[in-house]
């Protein structure tokens, strides 16, 4: 995409024109304006709004992929995510909830991507760490504390904030706990053990209601605390927005998730382009060769498990608080598989790819497939030739499955596969790089020769 190869066909020409230069800026600006207008004038939940919302997400993708100035991208993207979407959210609670859910799964997928995409360790029980974080806040902030021990009382809701950090730490700890016994395993064996681990956590959540009631078993935990709205006065009085508590909470969780996603992206991409990221990748490529380079296998793998699990732990705390209610089926195997599907669909190892995959799968789950089912049912009622025995709502997952199959056949590397980072920072320093050989070897490399430079005098 980034190469400047001459446009070959009409589509390429259009793409090239719209992604850079003055046309690029005006196209994005206009598109953003239209999207904003569409969203703000269609607050009801309907097919039209669905389409507008999808166009909005496409806009974000286009902003990311276009070749306009970085500042412009940041400002426009920030405007869309921090202003337009929240305002739209005050008009329609459904879509901001979808966006929040998508954000939660983006963070989860990014975390799983560290383990699966970077380090190449297939983990089928990833949702366990999410569960641990969710139950951590669920138990500590509710009556469960008193049920466990009458002398204990729930932590005050304001503790939500430090608990996000605690969720991070507890998640990482569980990541290491899972990592320790499975370090010797590879591939299929590892996958099965992690699957078992995920089930163990779920079954524990399901059965730890006696002898001491820790998790309240299959009943789940109700009435999970939300943090106090410390910013309510600011929003209502200073910003002059008349929002009720429900709306404020939605906004709060949206922004909390958005911030954590941004933080996750920063952390993950910094790690990826560091010695640690390279060590993970080396282990994924060839373990034996990796240890021969002095990479400590155990520590490096454990770090991947810990980093991946920590994001899930932190998100679990937020998720529990946002949902108010958690129960064991929320954290079943299908959820793990779903997150894995996000990673693979988007492009394993690729940060933007995985984010796109997470948004796409969440949208499919919550919005597109149910909408498709509704449309089909309406058609059915209107007399379209669809057999009456066919209930579209029952077939939602079938479409999802078909989509996965088609993707893997036609684009097995994912939607936005990982691109190698191009060398930028070294290029300009090449000139003053002293070379021992004294050979001509400046920025523009000489044509490769068969014999290495400097060989010969003795041979």
């Amino acid at each position, binding site marked *: 995409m980034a190469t400047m190869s001459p446009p070959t066909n009409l589509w390429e020409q259009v793409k090239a024109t719209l992604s850079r230069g003055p046309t690029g800026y005006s196209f994005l600006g206009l598109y953003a304006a239209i999207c904003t207008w569409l969203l703000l004038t269609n607050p009801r939940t309907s097919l039209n709004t669905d389409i507008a919302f999808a166009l909005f997400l496409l806009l974000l993708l286009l902003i990311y992929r276009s070749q306009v100035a970085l500042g412009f991208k940041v400002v426009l993207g920030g405007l869309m995510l921090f202003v337009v979407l929240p305002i739209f959210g005050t008009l329609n609670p459904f879509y901001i909830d979808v966006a929040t859910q998508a954000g939660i799964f983006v963070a989860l997928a990014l975390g799983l991507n560290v383990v699966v995409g970077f380090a190449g360790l297939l983990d089928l029980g990833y949702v366990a760490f999410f569960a641990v974080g969710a139950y951590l806040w669920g138990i500590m902030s509710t009556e469960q504390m008193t049920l466990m021990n009458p002398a204990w009382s729930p932590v005050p809701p304001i503790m939500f904030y430090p608990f996000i950090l605690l969720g991070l730490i507890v998640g990482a700890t569980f990541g290491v706990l899972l990592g320790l016994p499975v370090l010797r395993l590879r591939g299929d064996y590892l996958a099965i053990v992690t699957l078992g681990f995920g089930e163990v956590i779920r079954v524990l959540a399901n059965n730890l209601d006696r002898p001491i009631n820790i998790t309240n078993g299959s009943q789940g935990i109700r009435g999970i605390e939300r943090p106090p709205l410390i910013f309510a006065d600011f929003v209502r009085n200073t910003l002059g927005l008349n929002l009720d508590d429900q709306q404020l909470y939605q906004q709060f969780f949206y922004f909390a998730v958005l911030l954590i996603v941004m933080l996750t992206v920063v952390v993950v991409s910094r790690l990826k382009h560091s010695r640690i990221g390279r060590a993970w990748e080396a282990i994924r490529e060839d373990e034996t060769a*990796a240890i021969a380079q002095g990479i400590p296998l155990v520590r490096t793998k454990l770090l991947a498990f810990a980093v991946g699990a920590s994001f899930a732990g932190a998100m679990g705390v937020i998720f529990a608080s946002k949902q108010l209610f958690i129960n064991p089926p929320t954290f079943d195997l299908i959820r793990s598989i779903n997150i894995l599907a996000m990673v693979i669909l988007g492009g394993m190892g690729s940060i933007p790819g995985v984010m796109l995959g997470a948004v796409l799968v969440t949208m499919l789950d919550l919005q597109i497939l149910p909408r498709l089912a509704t449309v089909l049912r309406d058609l059915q009622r209107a007399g379209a030739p669809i057999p009456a025995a066919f209930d579209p709502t029952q077939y939602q997952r079938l479409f999802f499955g078909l989509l996965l199959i088609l993707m893997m056949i036609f684009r097995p590397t994912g939607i936005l596969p990982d691109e190698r980072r191009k060398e930028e920072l070294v290029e300009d320093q090449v000139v003053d790089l002293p070379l021992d050989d004294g050979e001509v070897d400046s920025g523009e490399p000489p044509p490769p020769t068969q*014999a290495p430079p400097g060989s010969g005098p003795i*041979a």
Partner: protein
Amino acid sequence: MALLEATNVTKTFGGLTAVNDVTLMIEKGSIASVIGPNGAGKTTFFNMLTGIYKPDKGAILFDGTSIAGMRSDRIAALGMRRTFQNIRLFNNMTVLENVLVGMHTRLHIPFWQIIASAPGVRREETKARDEARERLAYVGLDAKREELAKNLPYGDQRRLEIARALAGDPKLILLDEPTAGMNPQETDAATGLIRRLRDDLGLTVVLIEHDMRLVMSISERISVLDYGTKIAEGDAHTIRSNPRVIEAYLGKGAAGAAA
């Protein structure tokens, strides 16, 4: 003084004794070769030196440290690097990244600083990249640094493996059949490179090699393994005329004829 001392090293797999009571001294700054027919235990011996296998018996001293049974990554960190008989590059990483991975033990920026993007991170990374490019230039691959390792031609892959090993600033480099599958021209280039490793960089080099022309021309000391046992040792001339070596390679009759 010997940089590497393997004393009475033995390794058995089930009933098969792959390496039997082998003693080997490698002098600092020398080029030494280990030769022998296929299945003589040469690679098994290398694998014990680099910690992939733990020897059943015997001691291995590297630069004064006992390394028998030590973990591979620790041994690598002590300054012993190797290449593999069947090239083992990180195929989906770029040439430059392969060398950067080889530099792993020399990069020490802690996890927290990477996350915080502390100023030292950028500094260390830039320095590492510069050094990696120097290593690549040394083996003649700098121009291809952005290519994926798997897309390199065979000879370049061999050289990249050497560059990756060099990135760890080793004291000793073990080359497992560095010219296998090369044409004579490529072999000559590789020979020059191996010689330069010692002459320019002061490295100690140990080779496993089948190309006798290369072995004889380059090695100061040659050790011959056959069925896991060291049957001869000495300089090229001694080895060439040793009847047991000829027997091992060509059979008993040939040894008699040569004598």
